[in-house]
């Protein structure tokens, strides 16, 4: 399953860091962050619950870049 989320982040490098963090999160098959469109596209693993996975993604992203937001 694929879902797109709106994000808020200030710099392109931070967006890269968010992408890395999201990809390392359990339940995420592939995540791409589009800095220019301020969107994060997440493909979930089979059977993963998007809501809980995304909470985790947000936590991990906050860890690498304090000043970011993912609108779930």
């Amino acid at each position, binding site marked *: 399953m694929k879902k797109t989320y709106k994000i808020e982040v*200030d*710099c*392109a*490098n931070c967006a*890269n*860091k968010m992408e890395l963090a999201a990809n390392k999160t359990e339940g995420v098959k592939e995540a*791409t962050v*589009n*800095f*220019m*469109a*301020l*969107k994060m*596209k997440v493909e979930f693993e089979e059977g993963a619950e998007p809501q809980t996975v995304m909470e985790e993604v947000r936590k991990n992203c906050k*860890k*690498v870049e*304090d*000043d970011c937001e993912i609108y779930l």
Partner: protein
Amino acid sequence: MNRKQKHTLIRIIISAVLLIALCFVHLSRPVMCVLYLIPYLVIGYDILKKAGKGIINRQPLDENLLMAIATIGAMVLAVCRTGDFTEAVAVMLFYQIGELFQSCAVGRSRRNIGELMDIRPDCANIEGPDGIEQVDPDEVEIGTVILVQPGEKVPIDGIVEDGNASMDTSALTGESVPRSVRPGDEVISGSIDMNGVLRIRTTREFEESTASKILDLVENASSRKSRSENFISRFARVYTPAVVIGAVLLALVPPLVQMAMPGMSAEWGEWIYRALTFLVISCPCALVISIPLSFFAGIGGASREGILVKGSNFLEALSAVDTVVMDKTGTLTKGVFEVTGVYPRQGLTQDELLQMAARAEMYSSHPVALALRGAAGDAAETGSVEDVEEIAGHGVRASVDGKTVCAGNMKMMKLAGAEGITDAPAGAEGLPCTPEEAGTRIHVSADGRYAGCIVISDVIKETSAEAVSKLRAAGVKRLIMLTGDAKAAAEAVAEQLGITEVFSELLPGDKVEKVESLSGGAGTDGKSGTGEGPEKKGGSRKGKLAFVGDGINDAPVLSRADVGIAMGALGSDAAIEAADVVLMDDNPVKIAKAIRISGKCMRIVRENIVFAIGIKVLCLLLCALGLVGMWAAIFADVGVMVLAVLNAIRTLFVKNL
């Protein structure tokens, strides 16, 4: 400017004013230190906070930490050595100004592109029981009749039920000539009704409509990253640690060497200062921001011209295209048959022959019949036509104004027993000329006597020749035309357009094979003769192959080519799915334009990479040699970033390419 940016601006102003004011205050060093801490914290508290959090979360070094280390270091140096507190504050100040500029520039280009792609409709008008109702286009079901007033955007794809209007489709296709629509015509969402009230029966849901699809495509385009973008991400990851190691070495090695040398004292302060400057310069922002921004602007600018590029990676591939394979029908030709030659026997006029044939084909829906009727005009509608008989594989026989008229191929003529014709038309008796032009020949006989021949062929688009020459000018080395048509017809078209390589009489499956062999083996292909070594065998050549088709029947070929370009794709979902680049209208000149846009974009990307890395390396060197101070360093850093961003925005302007 949003709230965050305004907030930063206010902090910049306060801290700058305080900094200037403090220049006129002269007190003892500890007091000065405390006073300077005020503007320093005003401008830098968030960076210090982020740096702290980064350490707590065990994150690798980032620019916040670098800035924090550098400025705190400068403060410490000022306390124990120079007494110059201005430096730390100024560095932080410049850094923030740079960040603010970058954030504004990015926001601005986001909005710019948003405006360019302003095809998202806000509402749909529905005629309800009590007058016109405005509803969310999302809620409109298929088959609903919607009302579009002059000046409004069509919200959903549909068919005109009632009304005439000129439609401005420039936001979709880049084509400035308005298209006029009548009842029964299809209209696509995103086009603007210029002058008439239209009632449109919707044929799709809003989500499936052209405007929604295009927006979705463009917004998602930059998610597919190009090699350059990935390179920069990887570069930034190794670059920062490398610079930090460099800075540590710079701070430690030279003083230790000095200590080891007899008669020299270690200048710890000087080298630590240089190491800190080194850190200030190191921030990779200019690179990291300018590359995706360039691609984003390039894709946005191209979509304004009716060229939808599905990803940065395809823009990159497009710029490396040196072989363009084109389908004939629908790409270089209109895909519609037209009468291109009328050759009556002696004693008949061209018009008489045409009228005769058109009347005989009066009731047929065959493309040939349509072409004949189209050429004959309204006059063909008059007169009596009876006993129409279609003979499969031969043609048609009918009684026109009392005469038995047969129209069809040579077999038909034999069947009709037409006199005065032989199998070899050249020099045949009664045949006034020898039509050598390519195309389908329709022979006509009247009451058993040969009347002449009409040539019908697919018409070359007016812009095809221009497209070919522009493609060559854009650096395409090989132009190849593929077609399922007969050899003679194909070669005639190719010759007219100046295309030298033609593969004709191909079945759809053959086209896939051809494209595969062209893209894989072209390097070792004797014909290309580029002298590439045998080690390049197996398709790892540098130049890319683009296939251009009209999106009908050639989806497999589109997906097999390095870059699949579908044209005239408005409303054709299959083509939009299969292609990497979608040309909204069917003008082949746009192929060359797409290549030039990609070329410009890649040139700017390369400029930015070379420029930003070059200046960085230069500054790092100068700093290591002690030729520049922290001030100059931060100035160079912010300056490079500003220039790189401005350069990136240049990609947006593609109108005159």
